[in-house]
């Protein structure tokens, strides 16, 4: 007759009890490992994530996740109380499993020295016979407890909460750098419909324009808003099958517009890393600790400036203008072109004829900003007083700065300045803007004052 696995291994019922006891201990250890392992791993990972969190939101997410994992551990520990394991309880379990009628319990607990030997031998014999019924793998299999599933679920929830909070905090929204890409995707969608091909092209050109470095956030926002208006108009004009696609595009543009605006607001609210002590909008007074000024924002948005190795702020055109009025001199801006926004603001100050209306110096304007000399650098000629001698023995040297319109500068750089389709993006003047001849240099001549035509004042400083 084939002996059972237990019979082969176990010589006496007491040894069988011991073996089952060890096996059940391993089960208990496995239960604990499975019940707390996932949670502990998740908590550890989240604590590490908190320790190395790149942002405050990520840290909060990690803390919340770790807290959830710890809470789940406490709940699992309180709910999944393992059965106290002892030789007595194991013997009783064996009795129940093979219906041994407390034989193993008696053998495991009785004091053999005070018991009748004959009775004990007989009991051992009976228990040994019953032990053949026992198959450890069959009768004491390891089953994964429900608490283990709960633990894994709770750990997954904790990690999910962490990633969710991190994603929301990071603003899993389209970043400004991704705006053109998003627009191109939208254009591709629209281009699938022949009727919307035109709009698709416009969207692509908008995407290309947004990639141009000299656009400020406000301008980008304005361009997006214009595009959105166009799409909405088209939506109203062309109800039908394209309605859904158009509304999608409009809402997407609205979202992009909002994000662009938010980004601008964030930067204004001091989200930027640069602190400027320069006066904002030519008010002529320093505002330390206010965060980035508008001009600083422009500097940040302008890659040329960012890559130029010197990210410094410059005063607003308004302040520059007022400084010009105050000092009567023009300032060289280290090769930095005025932005389109500056130009736009400048144009706003003009009448319909393009002539700048004379303004009186306001209280806040130009409080000696132009007259201040930069410290630590040799005084340029523009700071020389009349009669002083500068480089090349130029006495009272004065100069003017001719600031060309932005389009011309860009055209000069990019040889044409058109969009991808080769279409001109803006109307550009055909002729030269400035025709003011500079006077011939006369060494001993008094400083010359040139009266500029009014219409050139806006473009020649």
């Amino acid at each position, binding site marked *: 007759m084939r002996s059972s696995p237990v019979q082969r291994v176990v010589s006496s019922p007491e040894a069988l009890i011991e073996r089952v006891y060890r096996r059940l201990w391993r089960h208990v250890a496995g239960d604990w490992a499975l019940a707390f392992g996932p949670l502990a791993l998740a908590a550890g990972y989240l604590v590490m994530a908190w320790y190395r969190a790149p942002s405050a939101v990520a840290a909060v997410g990690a803390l919340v996740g770790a807290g959830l994992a710890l809470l789940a551990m406490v709940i699992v520990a309180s709910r999944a109380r393992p059965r106290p394991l002892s030789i007595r309880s194991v013997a009783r379990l064996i009795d129940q499993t093979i219906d041994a009628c407390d034989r193993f319990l008696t053998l*495991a607990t009785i004091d053999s020295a005070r*018991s009748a030997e004959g009775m004990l031998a007989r009991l051992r014999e009976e228990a040994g016979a019953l032990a053949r019924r026992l198959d450890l793998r069959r009768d004491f299999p390891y089953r994964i407890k429900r608490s283990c599933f709960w633990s894994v679920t709770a750990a997954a929830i904790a990690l999910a909460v962490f990633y969710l909070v991190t994603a929301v905090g990071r603003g899993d929204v389209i970043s400004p750098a991704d705006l053109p890409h998003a627009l191109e995707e939208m254009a591709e969608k629209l281009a699938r419909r022949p009727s919307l091909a035109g709009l698709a092209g416009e969207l692509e050109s908008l995407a290309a324009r947004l990639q141009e470095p000299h656009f400020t956030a406000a301008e980008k926002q304005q361009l997006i808003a214009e595009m959105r208006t166009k799409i909405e108009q088209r939506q109203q004009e062309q109800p039908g099958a394209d309605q859904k696609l158009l509304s999608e595009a409009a809402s997407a543009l609205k979202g992009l517009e909002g994000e662009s605006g938010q980004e601008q607001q964030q930067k204004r609210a001091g989200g930027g890393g640069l602190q400027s002590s320069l006066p904002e909008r030519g008010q002529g007074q320093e505002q330390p600790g206010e965060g980035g000024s508008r001009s600083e924002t422009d500097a940040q948005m302008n890659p040329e400036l960012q890559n130029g190795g010197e990210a410094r702020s410059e005063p607003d055109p308004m302040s520059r203008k007022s400084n010009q009025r105050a000092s009567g001199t023009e300032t060289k801006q280290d090769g930095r072109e005025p932005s389109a926004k500056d130009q736009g603001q400048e144009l706003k100050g003009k009448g319909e004829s393009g002539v700048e209306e004379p303004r009186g110096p306001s209280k806040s304007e130009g409080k000696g900003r132009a007259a201040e000399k930069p410290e630590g650098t040799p005084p340029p000629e523009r700071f020389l007083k009349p009669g002083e001698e500068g480089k090349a023995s130029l006495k009272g040297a004065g100069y003017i700065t001719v600031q060309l319109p932005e389009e011309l500068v860009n055209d000069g750089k990019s040889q044409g300045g058109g969009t991808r389709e080769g279409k001109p993006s803006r109307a550009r003047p055909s002729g030269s803007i400035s025709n003011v001849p500079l006077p011939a240099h006369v060494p001993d001549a008094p400083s010359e004052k040139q009266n500029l035509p009014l219409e050139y004042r806006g473009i020649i400083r």
Partner: protein
Amino acid sequence: MQPEEFQNIFKSLDREIRKVIVGHDDVIKKVLIAFFAGGHVLLEGVPGLGKTLLVKSLSQALGITFKRIQFTPDLMPSDIVGTEVLTERNGHREFQFKQGPIFAHVVLADEINRATPKTQSAVLEAMEERQVTVFGESHRLESPFMVLATQNPVELEGTYPLPEAQLDRFLFKLMVLPPSPGELREILKRTTGTASGRIGTVLPANGLGLLDEMHQLLRQVLIAPPIEEYVVRLVHATQPGAQNGSPVKSGIRQYIRFGSSPRGAQAVILGAKGNALAEGRVHVSYEDIEDVVYQALRHRIILNFQAEAENVTADQIIAEILKQVPRT
């Protein structure tokens, strides 16, 4: 003696008694267990249920001496234990002890509650000490010795209920219940016809020595300490004042005037051992304990007036205790 031998004798006795007793399987079994455990049994039941017949059958099957004492109010202690009588032998007069009916292996104390307490107490010493003292001289009772007392739960006028001290001396109190219709038909068939069951003696000629061995074997039955602890918890739970560590709710205890004495625990374990041997086992299991706990404790739990007013019985109390006291 081997456990199988014990089991065979037990089964034989049971079979023989059943030849004349219809039904009452549990009563017969428990009477036999009490006999081999060396205890006494109080049988309670209305008249005519075969109590006296059961005791007679037991003694016949065992082949040991049997005496019956009908307890009446005018029964005197000397009528039970015996007395000194003046006798003349070889021209000399001397007092000689004349044994009473208590000097038998099996004594049936029929309607024990009808005797006066003085007479009832005469049995006390015999039951516990297995000896009687007459005129200052102790007389040893023969072994085995067993008192089977019966009492009638009705017609209580003019009776003297057994005091708690005397009740405590009985190992078991067995309730003899009326037979079922089937059993009654069988009783009629056996008793109103010509055929009559004859009980054969199970034990051989030297049966007394064998009975002694059986007594010894019963006490050798193994009992695990956890099971002993269980008995302790059960008995402790019957105490109305027990609070510490007792899982029993106080709702049960409000009906108990006195709980079980340590004799109750002894009775449970001895009864369980007898039960185990009767089933061919050499160890006591939890089932053995629960099988005998009613018979061992019901007459040791003294209920109060509230329990009587609310018709709460000792068996109900025990059942509740068994529910509430965990095995481990």
